[in-house]
């Protein structure tokens, strides 16, 4: 358990050992399809494909996937309703094609979110960061991102421990106390992050590793069958959506 359900799912997924490039091709293709294809039936097909693949072959727990899909839903629904409410001379009203436009917006957004989640729940961040390196992102930036990923779990643990201790001492009873405690909590986590970084840096320097935290990337070979199925599946999805 790391405290982030999506990250836990990614490490435990049946697709964990598949090549990140293969999974990027599949999810990236689905994300683009969700964005470009008409909402009916394109978004529905993309959403279905992402959910079926995640819960089926990738064996992502349905609860984790469901919860994660629900998170952006509040924004999507509020945004879609706001977009189709019309401001006219007579006050507020529905735009002429409100239902279709709102449906299209929600469809694109939910399908796109599900496609991103398919990648997120099957591929840990540490597998994706080397891909940034191949996309010619400078090494220094990829290293900063790697350190961010590795350190955020420590800080999340600190955060929940300190918050628990504050709550046990009535630190979050009432808005005034809660704000004071939140300020101290943020300060404590920030100073701990500096302290951690300094200690990590000293430790690495002591071992002669002064240029950063270099680790060997795990070799996860690409599967020609997976790639072929992805290409065929995406082509079928596009054809059906365009012809329908």
């Amino acid at each position, binding site marked *: 358990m790391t405290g982030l359900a999506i990250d836990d799912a990614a490490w435990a997924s049946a697709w964990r050992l598949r090549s990140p490039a293969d999974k990027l091709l599949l999810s990236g293709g689905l*994300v683009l399809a969700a964005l470009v294809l008409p909402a009916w039936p394109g978004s529905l097909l993309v959403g279905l494909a992402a959910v079926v693949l995640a819960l089926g072959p990738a064996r992502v727990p349905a609860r984790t996937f469901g919860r994660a899909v629900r998170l952006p839903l509040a924004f999507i629904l509020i945004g879609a309703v706001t977009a189709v409410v019309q401001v006219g001379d007579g006050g507020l009203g529905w735009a002429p094609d409100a239902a279709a436009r709102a449906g299209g917006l929600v469809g694109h957004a939910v399908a796109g979110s599900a496609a991103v989640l398919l990648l997120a729940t099957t591929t840990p961040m540490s597998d994706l960061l080397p891909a940034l390196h191949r996309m010619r992102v400078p090494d220094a930036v990829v290293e900063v*991102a*790697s*350190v961010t990923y590795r350190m955020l779990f420590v800080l999340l643990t600190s955060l929940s421990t300190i918050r628990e201790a504050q709550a046990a001492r009535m630190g979050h009873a009432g808005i005034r106390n809660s704000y004071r405690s939140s*300020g*101290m909590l943020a300060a404590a*986590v920030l100073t701990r992050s500096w302290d951690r970084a300094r200690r990590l840096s000293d430790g690495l320097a002591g071992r002669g590793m002064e240029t950063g935290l270099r680790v060997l990337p795990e070799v996860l070979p690409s599967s020609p069958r997976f790639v072929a199925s992805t290409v065929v599946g995406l082509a079928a999805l596009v054809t059906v959506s365009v012809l329908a």
Partner: protein
Amino acid sequence: MHIAEGFLPPAHAIGWTIAAAPFVVHGARAVVKEVRENPESTLLLGAAGAFTFVLSAIKLPSITGSSSHPTGTGLGAVLFRPPVMALLGTVVLLFQALLLAHGGLTTLGANAFSMAVVGPWAGYAVYRLVRRSGGGLLPGVFAAMAVADLATYVTTALQLAWAHPDAASGFAGAAAKFLSVFAFTQVPLAIGEGLLGVLLFRVLVVNARPELERLGVLRRTPEPDQAPVPEPTPGGER
């Protein structure tokens, strides 16, 4: 407030990515230069990124009864300057999209533009203005954090309005709609985040003075053998 995946049409998604790119590249250059000069800063910058991510996990009680999460971009701009924040903010947005399902990949450019570019720059500008006009550290931090939050929210609302103009009143009507709908959560959040910043800095001034001096937020105090060091008093910084 991040724009969810798929919520922007393709042209807007590409356009905002192109708009954010120069700032993020500029930030990446600043980071590469910093790391080349001081290799150990990789870890400090990574820690800063992790802290910005973790800050969004702090729940701020809101006057309206709900709770909201700070964005931390104003704080990052004061501590690490806007160019570095453009890069760190984008990295954090990528992590939020992939670890929290918050935001998206095709909307990363638009979100980076509002949260990692406009927010930090607006917050930092106001911070400098307050400090230069004789305002203390704490009023400066309050203004920076509140304005960074408000600027991010206004930019996001305008991005949404541009992408989804109102059927009758066009962009202006849509902007009014999105600004007012999200104002319910975002305006209290901006004030709350400003307050959090003040409380945070009151602790930092006492507990992490050397770090704040190193980052240039506080002026260095004279060496002990040259002049007596006054006791740091929270809120008394100029």
